């Protein structure tokens, strides 16, 4: 009886698969092209953060066309009257909450709307995968001093009203929104930033090492000081042009410390301010060993609902509960262009799923209102098929440039000198790039979405080095590959027809982690292509932690990963910077060499040294030179072929968006990347349910 049912299930499943394929085949020409075509209009010409003297109007192509969305400072349409959610109005009438005018700052943040002015109410249902998935929360609230714009090309004001730098970019002055308040009603001032600086960043119990972006060249920390209650300055010894981009990411992501913390609340948990006995008691009750552990945990809003926030929603349960519930923050600083206090949506519920497939099933059933995180791209056909039944629509937000599956060659591999020498031979790497049939990978693994490309920024990004670089060595030409391999002396073949070097057999290993469902498939296809040109190739599917350890131990030969940091060469931890750790296994020994000042490890080649130099220089120069440097960087990187891209601009990384038909104001194109905190950069505050 069961076996019969199983048989039927298999029939159903295979039918589904065929249907899915057909569907994809029909869809494929449309989907990949919409995004690149839609984007260029939004192409930011001012991608690099220039110091501004006035509040910068939030820039987004669709929004600018919207007449009803003027920037806050536009004198022609000043907002005279503010409105608020019905639930809050009730509380105000009861006298439990001050009126909306008193809750908002003097000059509220005006958040542009995508389609139109929304309605209040509703619960946004989402899924997440438990406490380790803390960033699910971070990305939705995107609670930073400033934010990346929806297209990812610029920085827009948020808690900061404006900012400016001096002529040589060594001193930055930040102006806070006057009258802004924490979710408990307490004023938000410069002291909240100074608390972070003096008592968290410079406290070695909490911050063992000052992060790179806060360091001067000599390793000393940059100086943050208070001018008045609403003005703060950042002073570096050298020029720094990336501060605002860094600040757009200092929002508590990865459970890090945000640069602004509710001092009035957190002081009771800090050894410097708290009563020692009471603190010891709290540490013990929480099951912690030190006050630092207690502080590090309690400062996370989603682990401690008592902790006030500046975000549009504040947690009322914890990330370790079955449902993480967020409710509207009555003191949120943002309004829509008509003066309605945001957010529109009352509540967000993150339901805990034990595994990704269960979450996908719930999304297919229409039980999640807007979900892109943990949606598996391979399920795309199934999602499309169930669109009607699930009452949702599927949108794609392709990755922010780069390539969604790359092969990185370890430039400092020494375990097997024969293989190591080959990996360091540029012709060998280029030949292997030519040997890959990227169109086949695209069709078979990426459902025909995206394009064959090298790991460079997206075409609509100012750092894009041009088509000749993006498509360099990506044509499928095994004759050329064979020629090149012959020319570097790999002419001898063994009994099985594989090439030998100096009469010795060798093999190239591709280490791959089953991270995004289909990576091992890509690795297999690449391996098959390489075998065709006579290179014996072995695919090793490894567990993540093992793979990571091998990277650090310099044991990786080649690895398959993704390159998603091309939009941010001068901030964060770019993967093509050999110093990045954990980064790709491109050159672990070079990292050692650079970090030890040349005492250990392996000296970088002139090209690699130039890459490091460009990245450092980019942090200190103005916008135009940054663009030039970035282009040079990617041209050099692709030319050296340390890393070869296969297919990019697909919605592989959380880019398949399942959205409830009733949910409005969701942008159709959006920069999608971790530094952008997608979907946070889409301004979820202005999403609303039209019911």
């Amino acid at each position, binding site marked *: 009886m069961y076996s019969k049912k199983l048989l039927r299930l298999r029939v159903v499943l295979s039918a589904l698969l065929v249907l899915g394929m057909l569907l994809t085949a029909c869809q494929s020409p449309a989907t990949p092209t919409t995004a690149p075509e839609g984007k260029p209009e939004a192409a930011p010409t001012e991608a690099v953060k220039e110091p501004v003297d006035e509040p910068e109007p939030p820039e987004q192509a669709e929004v600018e066309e919207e007449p009803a969305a003027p920037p806050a400072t536009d004198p022609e349409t000043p907002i005279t009257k503010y409105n608020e959610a019905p639930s809050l109005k009730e509380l105000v009438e009861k006298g439990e909450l001050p009126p909306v005018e008193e809750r908002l700052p003097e000059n509220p943040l005006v958040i542009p709307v995508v389609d139109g002015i929304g309605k209040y109410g509703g619960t946004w249902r989402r899924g997440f995968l438990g406490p380790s998935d803390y960033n699910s929360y971070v990305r939705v609230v995107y609670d930073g001093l400033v934010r990346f714009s929806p297209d990812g090309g610029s920085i827009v004001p948020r808690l900061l009203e404006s900012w400016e730098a001096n002529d040589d970019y060594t001193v930055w002055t930040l102006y806070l929104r006057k009258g802004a308040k924490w979710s408990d009603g307490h004023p938000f001032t410069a002291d909240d930033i100074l608390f972070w600086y003096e008592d968290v960043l410079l406290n070695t119990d909490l911050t063992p090492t000052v992060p790179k972006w806060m360091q001067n060249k000599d390793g000393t920390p940059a100086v943050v000081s208070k001018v008045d209650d609403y003005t703060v300055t950042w002073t570096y010894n050298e020029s720094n042009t990336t501060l605002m981009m860094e600040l757009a990411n200092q929002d508590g992501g*990865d459970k890090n410390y945000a640069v602004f913390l509710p001092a009035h609340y957190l002081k009771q948990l800090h050894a410097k301010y708290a009563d020692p006995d009471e603190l010891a008691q709290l540490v013990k009750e929480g099951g912690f060993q030190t006050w630092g552990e207690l502080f590090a945990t309690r400062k996370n809003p989603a682990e401690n609902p008592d902790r006030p926030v500046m975000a549009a929603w504040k947690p009322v349960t914890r990330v370790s509960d079955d449902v993480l519930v967020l409710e509207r923050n009555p003191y949120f600083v943002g309004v829509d262009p008509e003066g309605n206090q945001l957010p529109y949506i009352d509540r967000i519920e993150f339901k805990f799923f034990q595994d990704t497939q269960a979450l996908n099933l719930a999304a297919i059933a229409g*039980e999640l209102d807007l979900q892109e995180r943990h949606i598996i791209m391979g399920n795309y056909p199934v999602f499309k098929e169930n669109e009607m039944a699930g009452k949702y629509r599927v949108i794609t937000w392709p990755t922010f440039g780069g390539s969604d599956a790359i092969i990185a060659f370890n430039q400092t591999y020494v375990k097997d000198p024969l293989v190591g020498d080959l990996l360091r031979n540029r012709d060998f790497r280029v030949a292997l790039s030519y040997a890959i049939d990227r169109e086949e990978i695209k069709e078979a693994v990426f459902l025909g979405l995206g394009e064959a490309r090298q790991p460079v920024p997206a075409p609509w990004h100012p750092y894009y080095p041009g088509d000749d670089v993006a498509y360099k060595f990506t044509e499928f030409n095994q004759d050329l590959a064979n020629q090149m391999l012959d020319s570097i002396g790999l002419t001898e073949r063994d009994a099985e027809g594989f090439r030998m070097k100096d009469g010795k057999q060798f093999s190239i290993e591709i280490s791959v982690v089953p991270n995004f469902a289909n990576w091992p498939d890509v690795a297999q296809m690449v391996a098959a292509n390489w075998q065709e040109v006579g290179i014996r190739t072995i695919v090793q599917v490894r567990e993540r932690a093992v793979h990571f350890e091998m990277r650090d131990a310099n044991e990786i030969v080649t690895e398959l990963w993704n390159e998603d940091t091309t939009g941010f060469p001068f901030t964060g931890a770019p993967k093509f910077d050999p110093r990045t750790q954990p980064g790709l296994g491109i050159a672990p020994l070079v990292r050692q060499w650079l970090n030890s000042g040349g005492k250990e490890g392996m000296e970088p080649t002139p090209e690699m040294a130039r890459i490091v130099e460009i990245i450092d220089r980019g942090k200190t120069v103005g916008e135009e030179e940054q663009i030039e440097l970035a282009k040079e960087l990617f041209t050099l990187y692709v030319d050296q072929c340390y890393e070869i891209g296969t297919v990019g601009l697909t919605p592989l990384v*959380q880019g398949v968006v399942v959205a409830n038909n009733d949910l409005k104001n969701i942008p159709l194109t959006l920069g999608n990347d971790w530094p952008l905190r997608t979907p946070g950069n889409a301004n979820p505050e202005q999403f609303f349910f039209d019911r």
Partner: protein
Amino acid sequence: MTRFIIQRLLLIPVLLLIFSVMVFALVQAPPGDFLTSYIATLASTGSSLDQETIAMLERQFGLDQPVHIQYLRWMGRLLQGDLGLSLEYQRPNAELIAERLGLTVTLALSAFVFTWIVAIPLGIYSATHRNTILDYLTTVLNYIGVATPNFMLALILMWWAYSRFGVSITGLFSREFEQAPWSLAKVIDLAKHIWLPMIVLGIAGTARLTRVMRANLLDELNKPYMISGRARGLSEWQLVMKYPVRLAINPLISTIGWYLPELFSGSLIVATVMNLQNIGPLLLRSLINQDMYLAGGILLIYCFLAIIGTLISDLLLAWLDPRIRMEKS
């Protein structure tokens, strides 16, 4: 008998100490630690941590200490009755376990009761009506029941319920009751949801138990005392229930003790597949993430219950079977 029990009880701390070292070593055995797996998780969702953040987290999680220090710290707290702090949840392990204990036990008990209520009568029927159509049918069903992995069964049922009725049957509560405090309505909601995991969890056990019961009973049914019983005019029902069933059930009783740790751990894979909030997924998750204190804590309790369970089995057998009781004295 009392001496035997005391001996066994005295052995528990020694065993637990040995287990604690083993458990800790096993949880630590995979390469890397909690932080490596945490970083890997972040990497797979697009985040990229820098070295400074990693250093900060290492400090926060106490992972900058050597392994033996970590063990001693854990042990030191265990001796004070403190299960420590979960690295992933950043909450006391005891709290996490306690939260899920009620549902875990409810689910396991109901599966247990289901198993016994179905398996024992079915086994008796099968044995006494050997080679009838119903016996064959039971046998076939039993084989299928034993042979189907229960997580597979769960997946099939989930798919079937979804494709047939369009309902998702994961979890133990409807969405509106998930965060609600306990009330009559919530209990009713639980009852509505619990039967499916109960069947899924119980089905393999039921099948196995029925087979064992049938085989044991068949051994007894041909014994001379049966003939003599019949000759004395005992009714068939009375005869079967009073003698062979009591004997046949012995081996089953000896497995009751094993059930104790299972009650606690929940079924790892089924619970994960069906999104049940019991201890099983918590354990699985802590093992995958190398959340060593949580995994260690759960496994240690598991070992403790296994020891207690065996003891209870022994006592039950002694109580039920005079032969064992006599031997002892």
